């Protein structure tokens, strides 16, 4: 899938109830596996956990941002979970209610990585986070990310 979009509505889970960060990450990985974007769920999860162990990826503003570059990823992807009750990602200001799982292939080409870089930059902007927090459904989340991050 060389020209696959970064995110599609079926990579978005809303109203997730999760026990902990590992739990929510696993659900997102499952979405990626179901979409054929990740080949080995356990292998990719291990990569994500290793990254998370280096430094918690909780961001101010209720954002969790687990991510990894992994040989088990076929196409750069973003999966999103909205967790209304929140799940701790080690952020100083409280649990994350919006979790982004970024999956990058270990040998990803530069264009796709640039899109991920643009996503990371946008995440610093409160307006972007707010619009995602307020997006009513999976389609809206995918639309917002695509519109704001992917060059048209």
């Amino acid at each position, binding site marked *: 899938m060389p020209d696959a979009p970064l995110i599609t509505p079926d990579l978005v889970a809303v109203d997730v109830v999760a026990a902990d960060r590992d739990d929510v990450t696993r659900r997102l990985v499952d979405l990626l596996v179901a979409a054929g974007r990740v080949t080995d769920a356990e292998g990719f999860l291990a990569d994500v956990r290793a*990254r998370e162990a*280096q*430094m918690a*990826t909780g*961001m*101010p503003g209720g954002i969790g*941002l687990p*991510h*990894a*570059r992994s040989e088990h990823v076929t196409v750069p992807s973003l999966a999103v979970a909205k967790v209304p009750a929140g799940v701790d990602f080690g952020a*100083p200001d409280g649990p994350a209610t919006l979790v982004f799982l*970024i999956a*990058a292939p270990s040998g*990803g080409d*530069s264009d796709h*990585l*640039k899109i*991920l*870089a*643009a*996503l*990371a*930059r*946008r*995440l*610093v*902007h409160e307006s972007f986070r707010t619009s995602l927090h307020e997006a009513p459904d999976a389609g809206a989340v995918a639309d917002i990310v695509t519109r704001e991050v992917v060059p048209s």
Partner: protein
Amino acid sequence: MKFVAVSSCPTGIAHTYMAAEALEQAGRAAGHEVVVETQGAAGSQPLDPAVIAAADGVIYAADLEVQGRDRFAGKPFVDVGVKKAVHDAPGVVAAAVAAVEAAPAAGSSASPTAAVATAAPATRQVGTGTRIRQYLMTGVSYMIPFVAAGGILIALGFMLASVAWAENGAIEVTGVDAAVLWTAFEWGNLQHWAVLLFQTGALAFGFLVPALSAYIAYAIADRPGIAPGFVGGSIAGLVGAGFLGGIATGFLAGFVALWLARRNVPKGGRGVMPVVVIPLVTTLVVGFATFLIIGPPMKAINDALTAWLNGLSGGALIPLGILLGLMMCFDLGGPVNKVAYVFATTGLINAAGDIGSTEARIMAAVMAAGMVPPLAIALATTLRPRIFTEAERESGKSAWLLGASFISEGAIPFAAADPVRMLPSFMLGGAVTGGLTMAVGSGLVAPHGGIWVTPLISLPLLFLLALAVGTVVSAFAVLFAKNIGRNPQEAVLDDAESLAALSGAR
């Protein structure tokens, strides 16, 4: 301030870019410029060496080894790691500012490597000299758009006028009443278009000294200083005190407003302070001081110098040219400059159009000398852009046109920011050009216009030669003066840059 930064993180796909964005945002919010090199998975776009050269300090927000760290050698830095930059970018920027401010004290050695400032906690106390310079720079930075826009519009007006009128267009255009624009404008009349350009530019120029004064006061006392600063600056213009008078009114307005703002006022009266009381009392104090204390000496200086000049006018022409050149560049539109200029233009009446007369030669010397400061600045910023701020470099580009049009005000932003170094450098060049113009014997029967009245200048090539020599002398004086009294670290940086430039490393 300007900073360069490097961000990196273990995966190189998220925090690297979040840190870059957060630092850029925080820098903007704090009024600084931060340019970030993201050493991430998407590839690294190396920083422009010119950007690195212009940076005051470096921020390392890198969890990986910084690639090419030697590019930043000699600059103060903070090293904070990527997470800190994501979570508290404003704090990181503040720490970087502190590191830069602490650097001169730390780097007293002459060796480039020893001059590297550490990121050790710095005392945030800023010296009086630094603070005065910051106030001046704030005023200048707000003044520059008025100088650039006004000066260029006036120069364009001169250019168009020299086409629109059969002859002496640059003179004619200044004599047309602005009311023609809204009462009798003809869309096909080039002369009217020239008047539009000239009048719009002249109005912008009218705010030059008031804006300088207002924003110096603003830098000191925040918003309550603005209105008194504007009023003080416009009185300084009225009494003929020029931009140096505007600097004085700016500091006066700022400190009076600040002093008033720090009074303890009963709670009920606090609201009325910044809106009514502070502007009112400060404006009154500034008006009093400018009208009654700054004003009378200006008149006295004017009278005394005029009498003295008139007494000299029978003497040798070359010393007179040197003297007039010194005066033209002494205060760029202030009382001394004005005496020399009025002396020359009033003499023109006696010249009666005779381009060989003594009066015409005096006019030529005065105009040539008045063109030197902006041209010298333009040349200096072209020769060594690195020792000027970005705004100064851009302002320097437009100074070519302003100088060529005899708009001496083009040099005011530089003179106001650093009068002690700049004005003597200008005077040196002005004296050279004034003396040389007399020596070559050029004459001029128009009161202004710069190169746009070349047809009215006798021996124009020699005139331009005299101008060029003074400009080069003055530009080198500027560059030399910029190095006097700077702290060793700055000098070391300059030397490193010069070496690098010579060796072709950049």
